[in-house]
């Protein structure tokens, strides 16, 4: 069994939730989002983020605005739309439920062993 692969799969599943959660605290541009995700080791390479952001934006959960930057090309600042906020709440709920359920299962198995 490839542990790395399994971990990657798990990370992938929660990535959207994390991005939305970061943006709920205020607008951010991709590099900022990535830095935060990198801290938590959720993302290894930056390239992962861009298609995700575009997809979230295209489904209407995010919007963005351009801002000039001194250190390079203009940056896209993403923000959560109303729809995105609703979606985030839903996602958070099911996340807690899921974590709960998974924890219970794991702990239950652990105590039995």
């Amino acid at each position, binding site marked *: 069994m490839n542990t790395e692969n399994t971990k*990657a*799969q798990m*990370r*992938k599943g929660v*990535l959207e939730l994390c991005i939305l959660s970061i943006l709920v605290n205020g607008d951010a541009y*991709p*590099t900022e989002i990535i830095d935060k995700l990198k801290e938590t080791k959720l993302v*290894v*390479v*930056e*390239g*992962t*983020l*861009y*298609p*995700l*952001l*575009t*997809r979230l*934006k*295209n489904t209407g959960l995010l919007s963005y605005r351009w801002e000039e*930057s001194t*250190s*390079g*090309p*203009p*940056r*896209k600042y993403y923000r959560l739309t109303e729809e995105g906020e609703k979606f985030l709440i839903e996602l958070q709920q099911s996340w807690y439920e899921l974590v709960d359920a998974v924890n219970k299962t794991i702990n239950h198995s652990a105590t039995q062993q």
Partner: protein
Amino acid sequence: MNKTLTINISGIVFNIEEDAYETLKNYLGKIKRHFQNEEGNEEIVADIEGRLAELLKAKMHAGKQVLLMADINDAISVMGQPEDFADNGSEENKKEESHSSSHQNYYANKRRRVFRDPDSKILGGVCSGIGNYFDIDPLWIRLALVVMFFGFGSGFLLYIILWIIIPEAKTTAEKLEMRGEPVDVNTISKTIKDEAENIKNKAKDFGTNVKTQFTNKDNTSKFVDLLRQIFGTIFNIIGKIIGVFFVFFGIVVFVGLLSVLLGFGKVDNLTTHEFINSFAGADFPVFWAKTALALAIGIPFVMLVYKGMKMLLGIKYHNRWINIGAGVLWVVGLILGFCIAVEFGKQFSQDAVLKQQVDAHWPAKDTLYLKANNNYATVETDIDFSMDNNRWYINTQKNVSTWWGRPRVRIITSENDSLYVFMIKSSDGSEKAEAAQRAKNISYQLNQKDSLLLVDKYYSFPGIDKFRNQEIEVLIKLPRNKVIYLDNSMKYLLYDVDNTNEIFDQEMIGKYWKMTENGLTCLNCPRVEITHSKGKNSRVKIDEHGIEVNSSDAHVKIDEEGIKIKSKNKKESKEEE
């Protein structure tokens, strides 16, 4: 010393070393291809380029002016390789990436495939599946098939074939594929464009790979991949065109065959049924003969439709049992057909010949005139069916069909000084008696009135006797040194008449013939008949009328009227008796 290039990424200008540039270019190319089929792919690529520009800009501090290989590699490692973007949402794509070195399945994967739709089916989900594939309301396809069903069941055949070759969408992935990118003119042109782009990129990749790495095996396999992809695309398009042709041709032949078998076809003016009845008796296994015909001819064309459909819909899956089953049925059809043919052939195995002498005597005059009497029931053009170069006809009057045939008239030397005329009737049959009865049923008349020997132009026999090679031969035994005149009406009746002039039977008419030791000799045929032509406008003709010379500027004619000479240059004309 290294060469540098100036590039522009997201509006920021950089100086970059040549090798670093190559690496960056390849990397961006890879990214582009990776997102090729993603929605908003241009935006994603632009975002990534923007970020790369930012990362690279950060390297250009403290008086550093040129981007080096190391800078590019740093930026790439931050951004990551496309295969590390565990993001594509679908597991499938990732798998595709990792397990195949070739990118040729990029679009094939996303492309719509044809499946039978189990969710909105009436019978097998064929129509709704095809409707999905071509983005047409399945109702129209159902209607078309129902209409074709009345076209001798071709709709039914098509439906069964489609049911067999189109797999059912069972998994969710298959159901998604069923509704994938539509197949229409736009997507086909896009597909071709994408494919061309893909091939171009691969060719580029291949080029740079050859330069940078010398792992032969890898390159060879990549090159083979590339070739396979190029030819694959070409064959794919050709295959679809051939597929359409196969389906069309197969259906046309199949419908034609069915209409003939079901009795809708025509053989000349006869229906299939009447045609069979003209030859086959009541004991002929019509059903089995039709079955044999349907299998022996139908199966190959059904298979043609089957293969064509598979090519058209791009179905790769093979069903061994279909091929084996079709092969077995075909062979069964051939064997059955062979048995029936052999059985039918027995109807011709025995023959009977009835020879009867006709009252005849040498006339008072010394010439016998042989003439044909046109006894055909109606006008000669009223023919329902004819065969063997118009030797036999069928004519139907008031639902009674009659066979008509042309007798064969032969003239040979008599053993003595008398004239003998024989009428020989013959027929085939499965038994002698039966053949004899058929021969007897042939009606034919000939009689002599003084110097005129009048023979019927046609003999006839009832349609219910069926065709069993019924024939009439008129044999005239002509005494030596007697003269016979062959009337023009005898043209098609004379058969194998020996003559010393060695001219064809049909050319013997309208002439007087004298019976000699060596056969008939023409009394009023031209001695020589030479037609000689050389060049375009010059012609020399020698025949019974005289001699004629025609050329572009002169004309000479010698005949009963005298000698005529005409010339362009000297306008003179002579006429002498």
